């Protein structure tokens, strides 16, 4: 596979390490009343669609960016690649 890195252009996926569902960015609030349930869902009930999947890849043998890759799990076609940090900030993490 080839991942079109937003900064570096097309790179062999072999340079990357896969983590999984981009929902792992959305770490719950540890002080919320439902924290136990929220952390359970966050950790264990991830998206696993047959189709478009937003997922985290780490460019370990490259620039060490975490990326959010939108990929079709049936065809493997990749339609979008973003820096995970940008995604995280846009989703309001660390406010």
């Amino acid at each position, binding site marked *: 596979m080839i991942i079109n890195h937003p900064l570096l252009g097309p790179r062999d996926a072999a340079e990357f390490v896969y983590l999984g569902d981009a929902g792992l960015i959305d770490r719950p609030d540890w002080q919320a009343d439902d924290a136990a349930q929220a952390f359970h869902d966050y950790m264990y009930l991830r998206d696993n669609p047959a189709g478009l999947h937003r997922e985290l890849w*780490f460019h370990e043998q490259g620039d060490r960016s975490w990326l959010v890759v939108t990929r079709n799990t049936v065809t493997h076609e990749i339609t979008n690649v973003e820096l995970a940090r940008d995604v995280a900030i846009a989703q309001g993490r660390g406010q």
Partner: protein
Amino acid sequence: MSINRLTGGLIDHASPLQFTFDGKTFEGRKGDTLASALLANDVRLMGRSFKYHRPRGVLSAGSEEPNALVELRSGARREPNTRATTVELFDGLTADSQNRLGSLKFDALGVNDVFHRFFAAGFYYKTFMWPKAFWEKLYEPMIRHAAGLGSISLQDDPDVYDKGFLHCDLLVVGAGPAGLAAALTAGRAGARVILAEEDFLLGGRLIADTGTLTDMSGADWVGTAQAELATMDNVRIMPRTTVVGAYDHGVYGAVERISDHLAVPEDGKPRQVFWRIYSKRALVCAGAIERPIAFENNDRPGVMLAGAVRAYANRWAATPAPSVVVFTNNDDGHRTAADLVAKGVSVPTIVDTRDTAPDMQGTEVLAGAQIADTKGRLGVKSVTVKLINGQTRVIPCGAVAVSGGWNPNLGLTCHQRGRPVWSEKILSFVPGGDLPQGQSVAGAANGETSTHSALASGAQGAVDALESIGLTAQAGDLPAAEDRPVSVSPFWYVQGAKRAWVDFQNDVTVKDIKLSHQEGFRSVEHLKRYTTLGMATDQGKTANLTGLAVMAELTGKTIPETGTTIFRPPYTPVAMGALAGRSVGKAFHPTRLTPSHHWAAEQGAEFVEVGNWLRAQYFPRPGETHWRQAVDREVLATRSSVGVCDVTTLGKIDVQGADAAAFLNKIYANGFAKLAVGKVRYGLMLREDGIAYDDGTAARLAEDHFVVTTTTANAVPVYRNMEFARQCLWPDLDVQLISTTEAWAQYAVAGPNARKLLQKIVDPEFDITNDAFPFMACGEITVGGGLRARLFRISFSGELAFEIAVPTRYGDALIRRLMDEGQEFDLTPYGTEALGVMRIEKGHATGAELNGTTTALNLGMGRMVSKKKDCIGNTLSERDGLNTADALALVGLKPKGDGQIMTGSHLMAASGPVDAAHDQGYVTSAAYSPILESSIGLAFVKNGSNRLGETMRAVNPLEGGELLVELVSAHFVDPEGGRLRD
């Protein structure tokens, strides 16, 4: 030379090459393949079939060959199952036939053929079940010995292989008319082109057929095209290169045979290179493969594909026999007849299944006729033809050239599970719309059967492919070439045949397919699996469609309704050596050496693999005959005076930024926010699921600067996870991370004399007395006259200890200096074994205890997990199942009396049953403690921390041991920790 060697062709008649087949010496010509040379020498019998051990000869002239498989070369270089059709002849080549018991002519396993009716499809699922024990003892060994094809030497492969990586705008697969036209078009447009051709000559059918291109022979035109391409820097011509797989996003795998046409590779050169090709676009111009027609005894040596017979005659100046009958259902068979006649080969008859077969000047054409049978034990001697009027006629001949039509070579087009579609025009499957991303198809591979249409579609294919990536190309002028229409009739097999082969290599006949249908195995997948159709080394390239046609007829459906033929990578089998490249033997993985490695090797250290690192395990001294002697000495010397150990392998991550402390506070389960500058703290990391993950230390060098250490094993993943936390979870924090693991050589100096030793090398302006530099202090210092260094007062051994780090290039000098200065203290280097003993004596956990299933609670560190802050793993560590009353707890073990505790033993009550139901825990670590003069161990035991003093059995039924042990505190030595604070 024999009567089967013709004149002309693309072989060099002036360059004879000697070779042997089954021990007999023959002569071939430069430019021959093993198959063409054998045919020229009147050798038709080349192998035996898989199941019935039927005599077999060559069927094809390419990599689709199912029959002529040989063991090529000898000794450690023996290659079983090598297709004689793809072996480029070289002087001194040796080949042997395979899958035979006795000689090729008198194969004792030919008896299988006599009893063939007992070996129908799937027979083995129905028998060999009684008596039960006989399957493994008798039946299966018998089957295994009869099965298989060639054999390997089991010696280490003496050749080397490379991998490589190529990039291009357009990958053109196949250098026949379509491929050459495509490469010329794209090359002239300035695109980066790779032209890969499986054969050692470019040209494909252009050099196998007699047609002309404008006023040139095919071969001459290929020559000029190749010459033009060779002048283009942007075009890479790769003959002897098979593109074997189409992977995601335009990645292709290709094998280049660098040395297979040589007796042995040149010095230092690889046998093959496995290329990973990154293409923006790929144009598959892989041609077509002729299909046979199934008829009675159609597998005899001499029964061949017509296009192959033609290629042997035209290109290789060889014929399988002086007299060849042609059997066809299409016009292309007539071309073969014409070419053979032109080459002086006798064609007594063309048997054409079509009632309206065209005539041929000077050659008899039997329209509406079929071949009903063949005769000849080891090669065709005659065919029996069933005429249109129902009469039969026997025609003597030495070969039969069969043409059942041409199938586009679909391989690469369906490697991503794309489904081909049916073409009524050519009665075959052509590539469908769901091709791999960036791939298109041209020429015969796309059902364009004439030379003209192949050239035109190749050129246009290149134009279109380049346009889609924003490059402009012109199709240009094409040479004039034949443009005959296709004329083929749907004729797949001769009715009424008793044994008509569909899959030659796996011995699948029309009858087997009928039986499969009868027993309910009707889907393509069931048919394949039940009969093994298409499962042989040729993946059924010549068999699958006929098989489908037979099944379609049985089910009353059309062929495309019945199923499609798809292929999986690789297109042709690939030597595993090529896929492994240089990552074999000692170079399987890179080796990481510590800064003291060369010094340690000089000391005679024994080394041990720790991940990719090689670490000194112990340092034997003269007279020590057992490793334990060395280890005991190293431990005692360290605990009594001072020892030194290279601990560079621990991960070292530099953490900087205004929020560095806040960040570590989230990464570690225990608190870091208030750690003072100049201090080190032990830290425990959890996974987000609450399980203990890694431990180490964090040293605060400045308000905004920490150095974090990780375990050796987790250095990479911890760094990765910290980046995840930084970039994805807390992007607001001002924190920067970078690994410095390799940049610093780090040594542990431990023992009562550690300070005294260090004071000799630390530059005098730095005070490292206990008051100035107490336990858990850290600082930046200089040593050896101004060399920058870092000093940490931390201890894994439990002794007064420091870890000192210098830039890696000075690591070798530092250990030598320490050893020199340490002589007065009898400084003893110690390895990982002594390190392990001392940490067990102190009850420190390592990977054996932080094994990915244990919690801080299990490890006795439950109270370290701060409940007052958010940190990774905190919330999920609170789940009930991880906090039960009988949760495992880490304890120490001592044997009651003598005896050796074995790691991996399970713990049972002192009496009672020994079984899984009574299992109470397991031993994680064990060692002999020379201080305690006893075996000791660490173990996880249910509710262990409340059971100290209890006696249990450590059972090891695997090795037959059982030992009474007492549960004790895990801190065997200096439990109060006085020594490390001295």
